[in-house]
């Protein structure tokens, strides 16, 4: 057996190119549908897991998909804004705890997630180095965000302008990085977390400046009317919150009117969840979505597409397989003389058969092996592959 396998190996090695092409073809035929299935399966499980871990999301009326993707994955498609009042409303019902989310701005490519401390406990995020956000302006980075931005505890990040032409709009805020989170294998790794109030400062809803009622600020005063002091445009709006100027930071207007992209509602049980959802049925301004339902719908679409792709791959695969067997058949024909020689000099039936079929068996075996190996690697590193592709 060993000897005939040696001969088989020699044949395959001598016809390197032909063998290589056939092996590659077999590998692809087997791996493509399987690998695709593995990747889709893994990614849908990941997506579903995160969606299932997020009971309810409340936002302004609009696309549920946009709301879900922005809240769960911090996508750059920002849904219509709701207000902070939505969070207070949820808390007031006593049916769920509310976690406000304002995901609008970015630091280069990384999303800035304005939220509250509860979010970290909710997602099970832990500090790897440094500390948690404490003071207005503090930023805590997900592990991948820290890598990408090349910054760690003690460094700074600056929010990116929303558009090049935005002069009087959102202005860049320089924020100290006070901590970095442990790797959580989720979208949270890419985020720059700040307090939702810091996000409002980025938006321009809160600011600090020189106290205009003080004599030192006289150069910034346009006019005084009684006890109304009007500042002129030279009043410096800080783009960084420091211990020196934090006292002067303040918000104008009612916090309840300030914007949010979503409120994550965490009810303690099914009943509370149902009751809470019921309250929003006839709501005019707001919608409540179940992220897992939204993701299921999304995944159904993906799975349907996947079915078509697999059907296509299988069809092509079968055609390729047929071609490969044609090649094998032609090979056998070409080797007729070799077979006769082996017979004539007295080779045993089994030995001759083994040598002749070595090509098919070898190619199939190696092809399937490689396909299995690729499948294993895909299973192992599939999520890394997905994330790299989605970038």
């Amino acid at each position: 057996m060993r000897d005939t396998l040696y001969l088989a190996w020699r044949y395959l090695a001598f016809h390197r190119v032909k063998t290589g092409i056939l092996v590659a073809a077999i590998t692809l035929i087997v791996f493509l549908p399987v690998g695709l299935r593995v990747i889709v399966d893994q990614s849908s499980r990941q997506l579903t897991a995160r969606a299932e871990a997020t009971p309810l999301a409340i936002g302004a009326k609009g696309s549920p998909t946009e709301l879900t993707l922005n809240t769960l994955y911090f996508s750059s498609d920002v849904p219509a804004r709701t207000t902070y009042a939505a969070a207070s409303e949820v808390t007031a019902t006593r049916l769920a705890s509310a976690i406000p989310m304002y995901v609008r701005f970015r630091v280069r490519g990384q999303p800035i997630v304005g939220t509250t401390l509860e979010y970290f406990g909710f997602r099970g995020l832990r500090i790897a180095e440094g500390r948690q956000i404490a003071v207005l302006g503090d930023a805590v980075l997900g592990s991948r965000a820290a890598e990408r931005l090349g910054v760690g505890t003690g460094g700074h990040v600056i929010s990116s302008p929303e558009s090049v032409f935005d002069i009087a709009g959102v202005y860049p805020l320089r924020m100290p990085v006070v901590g970095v989170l442990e790797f959580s294998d989720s979208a949270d790794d890419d985020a720059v977390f700040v307090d939702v109030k810091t996000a409002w400062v980025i938006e321009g809803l809160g600011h600090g400046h020189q106290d205009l009622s003080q004599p030192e600020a006289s150069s910034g005063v346009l006019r005084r009317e009684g006890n109304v002091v009007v500042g002129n445009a030279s009043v410096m709006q800080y783009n960084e919150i420091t211990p020196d100027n934090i006292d002067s930071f303040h918000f104008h207007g009612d916090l309840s009117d300030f914007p949010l992209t979503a409120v994550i509602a965490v009810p303690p049980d099914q009943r509370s969840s149902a009751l809470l959802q019921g309250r929003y049925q006839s709501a005019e301004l707001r919608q409540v979505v179940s992220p897992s339902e939204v993701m299921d719908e999304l995944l159904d679409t993906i799975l349907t597409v996947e079915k078509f792709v697999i059907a296509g791959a299988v069809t092509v695969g079968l055609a390729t397989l047929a071609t490969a067997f044609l090649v094998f058949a032609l090979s056998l024909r070409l080797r007729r003389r070799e077979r006769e020689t082996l017979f004539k000099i007295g080779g045993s039936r089994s030995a001759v058969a083994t040598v002749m079929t070595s090509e098919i068996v070898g190619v199939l075996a190696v092809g399937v092996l490689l396909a299995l190996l690729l499948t294993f690697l895909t299973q192992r590193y599939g999520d890394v592959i997905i994330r790299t592709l989605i970038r």
Partner: protein
Amino acid sequence: MIRIDGLRFSYGEGDFRLWIPELAVEAGTTTAFIGPSGSGKTTLLNLIAGIIRPETGRVETRNVEVSGMSDEERRRFRITTVGLVFQEFELLEYLTVLDNILLPYRIHSALTLDSAVRERAGSLAERVGISDKLGRHPRRLSQGERQRVAVCRAVLTDPPLLLTDEPTGNLDPVNRERVLDILFDYVKESGTTLVSVTHDHEILPRFGRVVDFREFHSFGEAGVASGNRAEDRANGGAS
């Protein structure tokens, strides 16, 4: 070594008929089969080796009735007892010279490839002058070199019977002489029985006996060759 009695063979279609009432080849002799194309020389070689079986009659090689054996038995017989050299060399293009020489030992369990065999292969290769080309593939050898490799393969098993079919048919005169020298030196040394089919009358003097197939073959259905005449020729042939 070889005894043939009442042999009849045909290929089923066509006019070919082989009828050999009696033929004997002594061990240790060198015999040449000559005759016009299609007279059955190669066919008889195949019958002697057990590659094909007669319709009727007996073929006995080395006291073994080859014509009565099963296919597996004949293969085993062949690989252990018979060495074959072909006109077209029939080397495996994907094997090196060394692997081509060792081929018989890899295609039947009756033979075991061990270090003694490898040593013998090495010395045979040296003897025929190709030991520096053991790693090459046949396409990089000349005609003469290829036939020398084929000869090594044929004699590696130290077979008592060596059957060669037009061994020099594809060789130029220089290589022809060289390969024949190798063959005859070898058979003289080892006492191997040599039977060669050949068209080349120039090499006949080397053989101890010449069998002319015009005696055995009948063209068409009419007429049966006279067995007596063939036997006379055989008995009266040069020693």
